């Protein structure tokens, strides 16, 4: 599958950058013939992943670096969020609905990512960092 477009971003772990990554993700998605609702869902999934890196990966310290890659293929969009923060010890547990390491939080971030996107792949190593890859499949052969 050939890559049709690719944007790489890198930014510090400020909470302001969650919103900027989110709007960039939507602008990137707008290349495809998606509905507004699908674009909304992509925005939520990307915000959840980036805010996890800010909050959990870097513990709200705004000096961490987050790398965000957006790829467009013929039949899918891919969003990859990488941090070099704390990492996740038990990924299966982290993905569980309402599990959060912080009792104040909802624990629904991964649930949203999973339900709004077609694929969610999480790789993580404690003390090294976390990579979240999300895929949205595109119906081809329609309009455009």
């Amino acid at each position, binding site marked *: 599958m050939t890559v049709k477009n690719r944007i790489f971003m890198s930014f510090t772990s400020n*909470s*302001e950058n*969650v*919103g900027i990554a*989110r*709007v960039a993700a*939507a*602008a990137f998605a*707008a*290349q495809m*013939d*998606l*509905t*507004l*609702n699908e*674009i*909304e869902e992509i*925005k*939520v999934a990307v*915000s*959840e992943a980036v*805010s996890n890196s800010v909050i959990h990966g870097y513990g709200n310290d705004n000096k961490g670096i987050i790398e965000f890659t957006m790829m467009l293929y013929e039949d899918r969009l891919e969003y990859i969020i990488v941090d070099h923060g704390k990492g996740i010890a038990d990924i299966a547990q982290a993905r569980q609905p309402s599990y959060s390491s912080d009792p104040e*939080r*909802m624990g*629904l*971030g991964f649930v*949203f990512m999973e339900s709004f996107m077609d694929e969610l792949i999480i790789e993580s190593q404690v003390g090294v960092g976390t990579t979240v890859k999300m895929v949205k499949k595109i119906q081809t052969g329609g*309009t*455009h």
Partner: protein
Amino acid sequence: IGEIRRFIRDDNPTKVSRPVKELAYRVYRTQERLQSLLGREPTIHEVAKELALAPQEIVSALEAMQPPASLFEQAYH
């Protein structure tokens, strides 16, 4: 989208200027009109074409209507 509309009606924490708000409402209205016309959800390109705007401008207008942080975090807390 119902989710989003509820959000707009609620007090918006970010300062949104009137023209942006109006554009966002026009986007929603156009989307609804096309939906009943087509019998399915229109795509962003169809909405953009109807409003004679670039899809990117639709993205900007809709984003301006939302708080920068996670929608769901905001909604639940």
